[in-house]
């Protein structure tokens, strides 16, 4: 029973090495299938209410046991990662072919290289979530960083090598700071295994500070946020569709795990962190309105949404914690749809400039309607994002009472997300066409995956999916916060 988990996690890892041997289409389908396995596997565990834990190796102190595990929190994250990675893999079939041709490369040959790095990248994210040991987690964090860097460096747009390097340096700093934080934990607690840490319930402020600042660069917060629009806009779209929805939010996951061990840092510095998070979110929300490049626009929206996650983290408690998880999922679904949508416009029309768009609904109703679902996710309308917003609001009311100085910024941030979403839709898709374009037939790969994710995002709001996912999440978080061990 329990070894099932390891099986689920190993399938995509094995496929990573098998897929490059196959032709592009087969490799992509195999990848999608490989991520469907852990997706349904995790759902299976979730419906059974099982938490799994598989030991990989035992090390002496200060490392401790290396293991992978699954509980309701990891489930939310890994379901998001698997669903998005599988769908983006299919989406990439026509997209990367278009990109390779554009770059003058041989599509067949180049796709082998691409699919290997892509799979490794996606698998590393999946393993980060399931890692039961901070050392293991860090290793996959670095694999994730390097693979994403390679993808930008090799296949990105614009000044891709410079952008790749920029991304690498920022995230390396983030990674190293976090590593120092982990090492401090190791020296103080004598272990890096999460279950043992949960028993000890203690993370020193020094360790917390390193991890916090590291992960705030990765998340990113205001200031360090400046790397993100470059990387997310210039990465090839399938990579953007993982970077933005999945990768950055994992910083939130790391902080979430640490704060489940010991939330003291967020409790002590709640007000300044809250102010910083709210400022990040509002700042980025306003910046969205000024972007000319569609992908950059989406990148700023990501920063704003990551502000939600930081707010939820610093609010803490049962509902803040649930808010982080559900918000991650909702953003992952919404933003992957939107990036793929932007990519579709690039592949079909070579359009990135929002100013030159307008009236595009006539030509690509599929992408236009998918974008509506995407922005509905971000704004929390009729999708799983509604639960995320509800939990964050409740967490905030529990933490701050009805103190308007705290509550109103949160309310404003949520409103702002709806505003920039529908503003963008109107600007890009409605009104009279601003460019002379022709209606083109669109490959099914370029829009069906978007709607699959869209339907998922609605299904996760309603039973039976939300009953088991959110219901288990609630029990799990309550147990962990109540002092229970993993």
């Amino acid at each position, binding site marked *: 029973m329990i070894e099932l988990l390891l099986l689920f996690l190993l399938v995509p890892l094995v496929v990573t090495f098998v897929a490059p041997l196959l032709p592009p289409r087969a490799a992509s389908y195999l990848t999608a299938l490989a991520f469907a396995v852990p997706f349904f596997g995790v759902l299976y565990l979730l419906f059974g209410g099982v938490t799994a834990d598989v030991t990989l190796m035992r090390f002496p102190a200060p490392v401790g046991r290396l293991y992978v595990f699954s509980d309701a929190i990891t489930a939310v994250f890994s379901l998001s990662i698997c669903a998005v990675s599988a769908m983006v893999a299919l989406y990439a079939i026509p997209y990367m072919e278009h990109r390779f041709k554009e770059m003058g490369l041989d599509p067949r040959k180049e796709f082998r290289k691409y699919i290997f790095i892509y799979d490794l990248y996606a698998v590393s994210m999946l393993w980060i979530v399931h890692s039961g040991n901070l050392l293991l987690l860090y290793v996959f964090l670095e694999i994730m960083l390097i693979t994403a860097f390679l993808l930008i460096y090799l296949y990105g747009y614009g000044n891709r090598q410079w952008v790749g390097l920029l991304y690498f340096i920022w995230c390396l700093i983030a990674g190293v700071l976090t590593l120092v934080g982990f090492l401090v934990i190791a020296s103080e607690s004598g272990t890096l295994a999460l279950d043992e840490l949960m028993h000890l319930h203690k993370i020193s402020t020094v360790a917390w500070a390193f991890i916090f600042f590291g992960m705030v660069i990765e998340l990113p917060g205001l200031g360090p946020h400046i790397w993100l629009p470059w990387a997310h806009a210039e990465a090839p779209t399938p990579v953007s569709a993982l970077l933005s929805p999945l990768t950055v939010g994992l910083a939130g996951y790391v902080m979430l795990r640490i704060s489940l061990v010991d939330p003291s840092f967020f409790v002590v510095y709640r007000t300044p962190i809250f102010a910083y998070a709210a400022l990040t979110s509002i700042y980025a929300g306003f910046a969205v309105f000024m972007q000319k490049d569609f992908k950059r626009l989406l990148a700023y929206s990501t920063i704003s949404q990551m502000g939600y996650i930081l707010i939820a983290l610093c609010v803490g408690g049962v509902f803040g914690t649930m808010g982080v998880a559900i918000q991650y999922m909702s953003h992952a679904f919404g933003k992957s749809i939107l990036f793929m949508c932007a990519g579709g416009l690039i592949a079909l029309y070579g359009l990135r400039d929002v100013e030159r768009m307008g009236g595009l609904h006539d030509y690509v109703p599929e992408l236009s309607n998918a974008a509506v679902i995407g922005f509905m996710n971000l704004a929390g309308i009729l999708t799983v994002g509604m639960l995320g*917003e509800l939990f964050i*609001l409740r967490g905030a009311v529990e933490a701050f009472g*009805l103190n308007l100085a705290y509550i109103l910024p949160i309310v404003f941030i949520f409103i702002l997300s709806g505003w920039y979403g*529908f503003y963008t839709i*109107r600007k890009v898709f409605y009104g009279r066409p601003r460019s002379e374009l022709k209606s083109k037939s669109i490959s099914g790969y370029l829009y069906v995956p978007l709607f699959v994710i869209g339907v998922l995002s609605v299904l996760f709001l309603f039973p039976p999916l*939300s009953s088991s996912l959110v219901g288990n999440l609630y029990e799990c978080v309550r147990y962990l916060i109540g002092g229970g061990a993993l």
Partner: protein
Amino acid sequence: MNAAHIFLALFLAPIVSSVPIAVAYRRKELVGKLPPLSVAGILVSLVCSVLLLLKFPDQHFEYPWLPQLGINFVLSTDYLSRLMGVVTALIAFIIAVYGLDYMRGDYRLPWYWFFFNLFTASMLLVVYSDNLFLLFVGWEGLGIASWGLIGHWYRDDDEITFVGVPDRRVGPLRLCWTPSFGGWRAISTIRLGDVPMFLAIAALWMLSPEHNINISQMPWEEILRAAGAAGTVVILTMFLIGLFTKSAQLPFSEWLMTAMTGPTTVSALLHSATMVAAGAFVFMKITWYIRPWEVAAAVPGLETVYLLALLVGLFSAFYGALTATGMLERKVLLAASTMSSLGLMFGTAAASCWIHEEIAGMNFALLVAFWYLVTHAFAKATLFLVSGHLIHATHSRFSEGDLELASRMKAGFVATLIATTFLVGIPPLTAYWVKSAMDEVMEHLLIHEHMLLPLVLLLATSVTYSVILARFFTLNFFKGGKPHHLHLERLPLMEFGYLAMVSMLFVILYMLFERHELFELAKAGFKPASLLVGVAVLVAFLVATFKPRVAALSKIGTFFNDRMYLPFLNDFISPVVGFFVARLVENYGNRGIDGFFNTKVVPTLFRSLSRGVRAIQVGYLRSYTQIVLGLVMLALIGVAVWGVMP
């Protein structure tokens, strides 16, 4: 067949039945054939709602969703819900049938039918839901569906879909709105209200014991007392902002006027039984269970909130009626009058806080507000449906039409005459009895609470309201001049639509004297004071019918047609402030930070540092010797200074 199945069919039938047309969007032929299927879905809802009314009155149903969190499918068929459910489904069904003719050949049918049905299903969810979160799901469905439908004609290329006079400018503002702009204005205003309302729900959820957020079961008094005076005011005001934005009360009314860019069927649905009615309905529903008339004394802050609702409602009612007197466009005139009616509903429902009289266990004021909502729904839907036919026939959105038009469009003429006279409160027609009860409510406030303003605003609104509907009638069928263009074709489904709709007003009139609780309410109509108001309304109606335009007032009419310049708030002040901040953020914030870290300062520093380090390594022994000697000298100086120091 148990209640669970009925509810399932009620909510899902409209959505499921509109999926085929949505999926078949690329196949024109199929799309043309599928609309009746969508209408059939709404018919299923109608049948279900009638079943609930007849077979399952006054029951409470609970099906699990997230039981640990108190979020469940909780549905109730209390007095308000079961009646409103039928009203909603019936109106939606009639409008859907009308739409089969009205929308024929439209370029975006899949979109239209999908959102039309989603709109209906969402409203039904709001109506039957007893759980605040479930209600909010329906609430969000209303928001997104209204956005989709208002901006339906997204191409913005047909002047007949616009609102406002093209090229009309006041200062920096263009007073003309396209469909996509109308949609944006709607959703941006709706979001502004929804999130505070969501916060209020979250706060109530936290305060309620055992996570219980079922409207009919929550211990409202206990919760609000726990929140304290300030807490009560904050929570309920936040909640009210959601309701006010949906119901287009001041200052959130602008979106409703430009919502007229949508197809007329949408306007009809939006203005009668869904969307705007949702705000007033939810207000009535929660007031029903908060029971402010009983608990206001014990809950500090509650009275303040109801006073706010009373004033916002009545001022919106007066503002709406006043601006409508200057409106040139058919549908916008009706839109402003809807705002006015909704204001009256809010005002009357809020007045329940001070009314202790109960009829059959229900608060008198709430009963009045609810039945006004029902009467208004059918009458207003009729008027919109006639407008749609008029727009089809005359190819103009501006009011125009004479007796010749009336004689050639007899059905429309008769329906309009009935709907207008029945709605304004001319004795002894339907709304007269309800409005008389409303007068009585406000009179009660004057006598017992010494509040003069509500009664004054109500009377002023009533008379003005009579003027505006008379103007609608006369400018379209009597004194509006010869239409520039007239193209009449037989559209039987459209005629059926408004005739069926208007006939419901007779049914309500009958019910007023047949149903026990309604007769108690209608009794107010026999008082001399009510009759006096009725006569004043009648006189206003007649005067306006025969003299719809007064040249001396044309300036102020234009001011009213510009909605007293309220568009400045939406289209000038908000974007100017917003884009100022956005520009600040982008041009200074982002450019500054980007320059510092990524492109200028830090990279330059690194470059010069590395150049400096590399400059040392020239390979000549002499320079290395100099460096070493220099370092030794520095060390010696250091040691010397250290030795001298005390």
